[in-house]
């Protein structure tokens, strides 16, 4: 598992993928957070990091599928899947290895945004007037959300040998999971069950974590969705034997 993860992570670093992902992520968030007046903290007047945590997921909806789209699709297309599957590795070694590499890359992209915390910490009036537990909770939420998006990307990549299809499917599924349920819940038809439907989506749990209250139910929700997606990937991979 570790060997696969290391190899995948290296191939991110050796190709342009890693630098583009990190570059685009930080540039777009940096612009949104500090430059564009509509979302800028400077104009907003409150020393908090809401911009990062509310817009970050939307950037990730596009970036994570771009990272994960190649993981299985490319191996399938170039025939290296046969190579990997005839080595003494279990399916889980391969899936978790690839998942970890993608997840790690996203975490690396998130890491530099910690600087924003210190900037805002200094900008507060009086200095240091920041909702620190809220920020910590939001970071945990963002990390868990990235993990779920990565696992969605794994499934999408495993069902096809076409990277573009993998990208679109993954982006759509991420979007659906993130805000889709929230929007569906607003429809009048099932208004009685609106809360339940809302709870199926990521946004509900993500918002809860952003408040700085780490509720085990929210964490369990993220872990379950991630595990479910990885299990689906495993099912798709084993389907070759049917």
């Amino acid at each position, binding site marked *: 598992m570790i060997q696969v993860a290391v190899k995948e992570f290296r191939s991110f670093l050796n190709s342009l993928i890693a630098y583009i992902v990190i570059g685009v992520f930080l540039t777009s968030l940096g612009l949104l957070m500090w430059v564009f007046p509509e979302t800028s903290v400077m104009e907003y007047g409150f020393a908090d990091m809401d911009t990062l945590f509310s817009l970050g997921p939307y950037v990730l909806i596009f970036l994570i599928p771009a990272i994960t789209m190649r993981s299985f699709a490319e191996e399938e297309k*170039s025939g290296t899947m046969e190579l990997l599957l005839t080595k003494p*590795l279990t399916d889980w070694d391969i899936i978790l290895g690839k998942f970890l590499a993608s997840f790690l890359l996203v975490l690396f992209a998130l890491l530099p945004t910690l600087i924003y915390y210190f900037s805002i910490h200094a900008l507060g009036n009086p200095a240091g007037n920041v909702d620190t537990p809220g920020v910590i909770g939001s970071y945990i939420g963002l990390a868990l959300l990235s993990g779920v998006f990565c696992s969605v990307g794994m499934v999408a990549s495993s069902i096809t040998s076409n990277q573009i299809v993998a990208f679109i499917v993954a982006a759509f599924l991420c979007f659906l999971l993130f805000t889709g349920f929230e929007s569906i819940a607003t429809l009048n038809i099932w208004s009685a069950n609106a809360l339940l439907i809302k709870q199926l989506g990521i946004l509900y749990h993500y918002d809860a974590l952003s408040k700085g209250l780490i509720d085990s139910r929210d964490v369990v929700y993220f872990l379950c969705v991630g595990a479910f997606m990885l299990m689906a990937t495993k099912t798709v991979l084993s389907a070759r034997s049917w």
Partner: protein
Amino acid sequence: MSILVKNLTKIYGSQKAVNDISFEVGKGEIVGFLGPNGAGKSTTMKIATSYVPPTEGQVMVGGYDVVSHSIDVKRITGYLPEHNPLYLDMYVHEYLRFIGRLYGLRGRALKNRVEDMVMLCGLTLEQNKKIETLSKGYRQRVGLAQALIHDPDVLILDEPTSGLDPNQLIEIRKLIKDISTNKTVVFSTHIMQEVSALCDRVIVINQGEIVADDQLSNLMKGQQHETVVIVEFEGNVSLQHLRALTGVKSVEVVGNSQFKIMAHAGVDLRPEIFRFAADNKLSLIGLKQEENSLENIFRELTSMQGA
């Protein structure tokens, strides 16, 4: 017994790729797996490396069942898949180290092993290049190197020499021959010469069924129905005279004073023809016994339409 295949059947959808085949390959044996395209060679190899499961029947490699002990099978087997898939964006060294690590090699052992493989497979000059920049022959060597890196007991090579130029062909064959001294090797091909260059035993498979499993020399003998001699004389010779020679079964006119003379298997007609020419004061300008060619055997074995 290194490889044991018992009543193996593989069905893809409604198509029977392999139909109830059984064979054994002993320890240290080299076996050529021969057949036309789509005969079921690759399918059998994919099952033996536990990449795809059999529909029916049992395959054991090194005493492990490919279904229930697939990880053990994979650990002791080196496999070069058809079309030799490689990570093109990796460097040769990096790639071999990665594969070595997958087999549990670490540190010093890994380093030594990679160096040995680079040397053995003649990659010394190319070892620091990216795989995508290598020519087909060198890629094939990288493929072989990765199959050999963990010193496997069983080596399964699916068309190891396809698409190589004649020089590379000879080099790769020599390489396979060199490494096969203490390993069980099964390789597939659709070229007969390959088998005769590499090994003695050959399994011929056609339309998913084994049509021959024997020593190559036996196969050549068994398939020989007659000996054929091509003679060419200067001047005219009557057909009757040739037919009257002892041992001749039939005579065919091929060209101007050129005849194809058939005799029963094992009979050498050449001395008789030479004496005939001398006695009749004829100038013999061509006398050639036709070998029962490998291609003929192959064609004969694989043209039988399975029921």
